[in-house]
């Protein structure tokens, strides 16, 4: 029989390193705020006949928007981000571009938000994620109330969940730094979905542990290990089916939801890893009170590497 739980400290090491990379990236680069999180305007323009990026920049500068950020997309459109424009300013700018560059501009999308909206989005996003985590902690503690320590099941699920959210946020912070990927309200939606999915996955394994505990006399570690093995095919198959549809959406679904779907793809992979390698394994740590082993600076003679 495969021994998953025996390797739990290797899993923890990997998870800790990955989390560390994500935290460092978040601290260094942060997330690139999209239109929902900062005030300003953003638009996608396409031109017939096409115009050059330099000409477009100079018209923007002439119109008083020298600080606008212009990006050429793969579909030969331009995405422009700038300070907040009102309806008149927007219309004047488009007219200016049309006259000066002798082209016809189609504004494929335009979005604009003020300071108030931006700060509200941040506030509500933070509240939503915290409330979601609390509700789930309470829910799991309630579901596993007949277990000896119901609260620790909830805590372990939350640890797995925080890991998932951290991985998604960390990867998006790297993508923001190196590929200009921004986070918006849909990113938060994706995050909350990841929260839901990661718990969904964790509960399936937890349920199995609970069931096996009720008719097994083996050690807690053995019960957890066999529960992981019994559910691993299901975990992988479910992730695979969800990944099939997500990858199809990512590749074919158009640019509007591409980042949103990417959040879900990363979250789905992290969630599956986490339910097998983090959540259930932490349960053993809590059950056996192995907290001292989690301390990387503990004295060697109390526990050696060979125990890993």
């Amino acid at each position, binding site marked *: 029989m495969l021994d998953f739980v025996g390797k739990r400290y290797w899993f923890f090491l990997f998870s800790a390193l990955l989390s560390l990379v994500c935290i460092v990236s978040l601290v260094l680069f942060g997330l690139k705020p999209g239109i929902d999180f900062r005030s300003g305007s953003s638009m*996608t323009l396409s031109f017939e006949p096409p115009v050059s990026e330099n000409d477009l920049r100079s018209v923007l500068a002439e119109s008083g928007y020298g600080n606008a950020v212009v990006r050429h997309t793969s579909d030969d459109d331009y995405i422009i981000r700038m300070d907040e424009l009102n*309806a*008149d300013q927007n*219309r004047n700018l488009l007219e200016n571009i049309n006259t000066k560059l002798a082209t016809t501009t*189609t*504004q*494929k*999308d*335009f*979005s*604009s*938000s*003020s300071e*108030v*909206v931006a700060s*509200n*989005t941040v506030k509500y*996003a933070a*509240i*939503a994620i915290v409330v*979601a985590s609390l*509700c*789930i902690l309470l*829910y*799991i503690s309630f*579901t596993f109330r007949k277990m000896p320590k119901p609260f620790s099941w909830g805590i372990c699920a939350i640890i797995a969940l925080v890991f998932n959210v951290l991985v998604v946020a960390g990867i998006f912070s790297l993508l923001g730094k190196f590929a200009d990927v921004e986070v918006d*309200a*849909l990113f938060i*939606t994706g995050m*909350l*979905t990841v929260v*839901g*999915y990661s*718990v*969904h996955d964790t*509960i*399936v394994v937890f*349920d*199995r542990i609970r*069931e096996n505990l009720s008719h097994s006399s083996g050690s807690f570690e053995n019960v957890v290990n066999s529960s992981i093995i*019994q559910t691993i*095919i*299901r975990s992988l*198959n*479910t992730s*695979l*089916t*969800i990944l*099939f*549809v*997500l*990858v*199809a*959406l990512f590749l*074919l*679904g*158009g640019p*509007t*939801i591409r980042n949103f779907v990417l959040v*879900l793809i990363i979250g789905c992979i992290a969630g599956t890893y986490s339910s097998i390698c983090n959540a259930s394994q932490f349960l053993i740590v809590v059950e056996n009170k192995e907290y001292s082993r989690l301390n990387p600076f503990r004295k060697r003679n109390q526990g050696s590497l060979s125990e890993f």
Partner: protein
Amino acid sequence: MNRNSVFLILIVLLLGLSLWVVLPPDGERLGKKGFQFGLDLQGGTHLVYQADLSKKDATMTDGQVMDSLVRKIEQRVNAYGTGDLQIAKQGDDKIVVDIPGVRDIDEAISLIGNVAILEVYEAIEKGEYVYNADGSYAYHPASGTLSDGSTTDTLTGKYLKSASVGLDSTTNKAVVQFTWNDEGAILFEQITTRNLNKYIAIYLDGVIISEAVVNSVISDVGMISGMEAKDCQNLAIQLNIGALDVPLEIIQRADVDATLGSDSLNKSLIAGIIGIIIVAAFMIYYYGVSGTIVAVSLAIYCSIVLAIYKLLPVTLTLPSIAGFVISVGMAVDANILIFERLKEELLAGRNLRYAIDEAFRRAWPSIRDSNIATFITCGILYWFGSSFGAFMVKGFAITLFIGVAVSMFSAILITRSFIKLLIGEGIIKGLSFREVKKNA
């Protein structure tokens, strides 16, 4: 007739009903029109207005002001004839307006958002013109005495009876003609009497829009000229409905071009269909006969969910299509849970019928508990989406919720009925799981 056949008949009826509701996509069924698509799929503009409640009439509560604003915006829009706009309060002091389709957005924005306080100004004091420093007339609000003989008031839009668009017979240009009510006529008569042969002006929201010499004493009617025809139409609508109670400011705006919208719709539909086909193929490949049963119940599942979307109706947005597709994944998950359980029971040597019952019974707590976690997140997402007017987020939460709810029903009732029926009637001998065969 046994219990399984009854179930089968019910399922077939349900499938027929759902298909009848769903097809054709734009057909009217049970009083509901075709599928509703959000602004990101049909194109349009999403506006969030902030009302400046500090400027409200002290005798009204915030709630009354907001209700009045929503009603007036609705009336303005209805009078304009655009139709199918969605207007809703958001929070304590915001109003969300969703305008679908392509049209002159700038015009719509000024129609909705201008306060439209009309005021009559004069430039004389004690019979003589007064001037600004630059030599222009120093216009100020004109007032008069009301019918009770004692109250003095300025002449504003609140004394209007009606307004309409007309044609100036000399210039052949559009004008706004208006009629004062009884008190307004009394005021206007006093103002035109003392301003005879002098300039008076009409101000809208503090900006001069028309200026003319008074040729004769007028009481009940007036005219505003010098505006473009479409502005005349907007102004007439606004004057008839009355000024907004407080000023509005656009704090968020999102436009989506209709072409981009329909392009997104096609792309995401194709992506969704391909994704679902791959899932079905995977299930058939991996789980054989029972995988095929899942593929069939998945098709039934999809038609039920789509029928619910059409009947509620659910406004479909790009994320909500993603929500639907993910819920298909969740629906498959329930089946995978059951089959993995069934395999274990069979490997443990139980007989097929007993194993089927046992697998469904034992998989149920996992399906239930894990889906409740998803319901919790859906609830929070819905709150998150409605607290700041993100129609995309709300759409996602609703479709995911419906999808997961139906998936529980589908996995437990539809898949089980099929399997029991096929086994019970001896149509299939076993479920042909590879591992089970190997061990047998």
